[in-house]
């Protein structure tokens, strides 16, 4: 047993971390049932079938599973309904349990006036990783959704500018936080180096900036000016940083 778990860590370097059991693990309900949460009851009345399981985790955190197809309606209602007022999007993220079937998207909400938390989750099947964007409900979702897209490959329908955020714009190895993604990346070290060195100046800019540069008829500014004609040279010759 201990030997297995020890090997588990080493194997992952090349193959991605070992996934969980095929079933997504569920937290057992406490004895005597889950205490009522006003929002969950209201959600059931309002949306009925679209509201799934209600879980209590870590003692006092309420989790509600929803139908991803109605995510926008439900989340928008949670913010705007006078009795709910979840006006603060604390977090938006995703979890890949490595079961090969679903990725879970998580919205963590807080209501500043009512001082209440709720966590909304939706299971998205791997072959249809799409859910509505809440960009126009909470602007905080802008970068958070880009991050989930970048690292998990979940598409947010209606996000106006869904592009990579932490990884480079020309990254082609996939979505790194998926469980099937190896820690060292999908390409060999040599190929990764070669790709990093052959980035063009356009690779450092988003589509909006490229359009602006075309419109005003200006060359794109260098990304790192010192020591060469761009990132390629300064990395290749090892100058630049050393001068400082």
């Amino acid at each position: 047993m201990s030997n297995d778990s020890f090997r588990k860590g080493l194997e992952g370097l090349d193959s991605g971390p070992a996934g969980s059991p095929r079933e997504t693990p569920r937290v057992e309900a406490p004895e005597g049932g889950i205490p009522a949460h006003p929002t969950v009851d209201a959600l059931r009345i309002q949306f009925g079938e679209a509201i799934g399981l209600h879980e209590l985790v870590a003692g006092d955190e309420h989790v509600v599973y929803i139908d991803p197809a109605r995510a926008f309606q439900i989340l928008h209602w949670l913010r705007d309904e006078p009795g709910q007022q979840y006006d603060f999007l604390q977090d938006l993220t995703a979890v890949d349990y490595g079961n090969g079937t679903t990725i879970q998207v998580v919205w963590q909400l807080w209501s500043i006036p009512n001082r209440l938390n709720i966590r909304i989750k939706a299971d998205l099947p791997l072959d249809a990783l799409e859910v509505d964007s809440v960009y126009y409900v909470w602007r905080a979702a802008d970068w958070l959704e880009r991050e989930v897209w970048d690292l998990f490959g979940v598409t947010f329908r209606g996000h106006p500018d869904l592009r990579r955020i932490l990884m480079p714009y020309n990254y082609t190895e996939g979505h790194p936080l998926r469980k099937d993604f190896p820690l060292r990346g999908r390409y060999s070290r040599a190929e990764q180096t070669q790709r990093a060195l052959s980035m063009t100046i356009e690779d450092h800019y988003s589509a909006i900036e490229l359009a602006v540069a075309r419109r005003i008829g200006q060359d794109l500014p260098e990304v790192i000016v010192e020591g060469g004609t761009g990132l390629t040279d300064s990395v290749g010759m090892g100058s630049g940083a050393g001068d400082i």
Partner: protein
Amino acid sequence: MATRKRTVVYDVRRHPELGAGGGIVSAPIVPVEGEVASDYSENFSGEHMLINIGPQHPATHGVLRLVLELDGETVIRCIPHIGYLHSSFEKLGEYRDWNQIVPLTDRMDYLAPLIYNCAYAMAVEKMMGVQVTERCKVVRVILMELDRIFSHLLWLGTTGIDLGAFTVFLYTFQERERIYNLHESYTGARITTSSTRIGGMMADLPAGWIEQLQSFISNFPRTLDEVETLLTNNAIWIGRTQDVGVITAEDAVNFGLSGANLRASGVAYDVRKDRPYYDYESYDFDVPVGEHGDIYDRYLCRMEEMRQSLRILQQAISRLPGGPINVSDPRVILPGKTATMNDMESMIHHFKIVMEGVRAPVGESWFSVESSKGELGMYVVSDGGSKPVRWRVRGPSFINIAALPHMIEGALLSDVIAVNASLDIVLGEIDR
């Protein structure tokens, strides 16, 4: 095209009390009505330009890169690019057992490492249902409040430099050095503290540490007063900060701002008050709330937060109980050396923890604390193994900096530096 101009530069009416004491207020700085604005439009209107600030630029406070479209000196569009410091901490965490993740946390926010250490340990403990000892709670409160001061001091010094006040930097870094010494004498490291463990701390406080802390507490207010003398009524400081980078309360909530950035806009949301942890409800402290949502109010909020942190520190020291710092639960804490060598059961626990790591039951927790930069959320998910399925950090800076374009579009280029500094970001945690 419509000309944008700087609306207000200096407003004496806003702080009538400043006029009573000093003569500084009577010296107006920049005339802004009329002529200046029209000069801008005549000379520069229509000449758009795309410029790059960063990633290697001292005023971006790390490897942040901002691409600005300028019309003369006015910012038309700002597009931040991040990821230059991406270290894939969250991915790496899935290959580490629960205790091995602690060193990753302080490398995210190296300006307040202990808050990150504590927040992570607290999230995992909450998920596992481990209750830490009373002494551990108070020690963690002390460490977190100390690092709040630590981080605010860096913010104060570097923002001062960005706006041309070099002296403040020297004052604040002298005080930071004292906190570095406190870090070092407790954890052995100045920045990468890695001091928490699941179920307690790596060690108890060393002898004389509390006395060292007390001497810091008694000397620090003087420096704070001196810095306030340098800045609060300073005409240049006021001119550069008041009504610059304004965000309304409604927008601030919608953008998910937290910490002093949110409270400066008039929203009283502080995790320590709204969802108290570690008996924060029993400490007597106030949360400063601003009114205008500009740089100046963020400055005032942070200055007051440091004073309030001192109050909490004093109360925590006076109530610091004795007793063990670690829980006695053998599932999470290594048994003592003597017990391990003499007692079969302890040896088994020791072996299990060393070889397999702490095992967390199936479950998850999204737990947040009020860090120096805002609400720091830690989301941990376990499938019952000794490694997390997911470890996610809701970095306050990541969400705060996303609101930067909203605050500076339409402002002047020089304000970009000021607003960016006022948000108090740390790129280690933005890029993770």
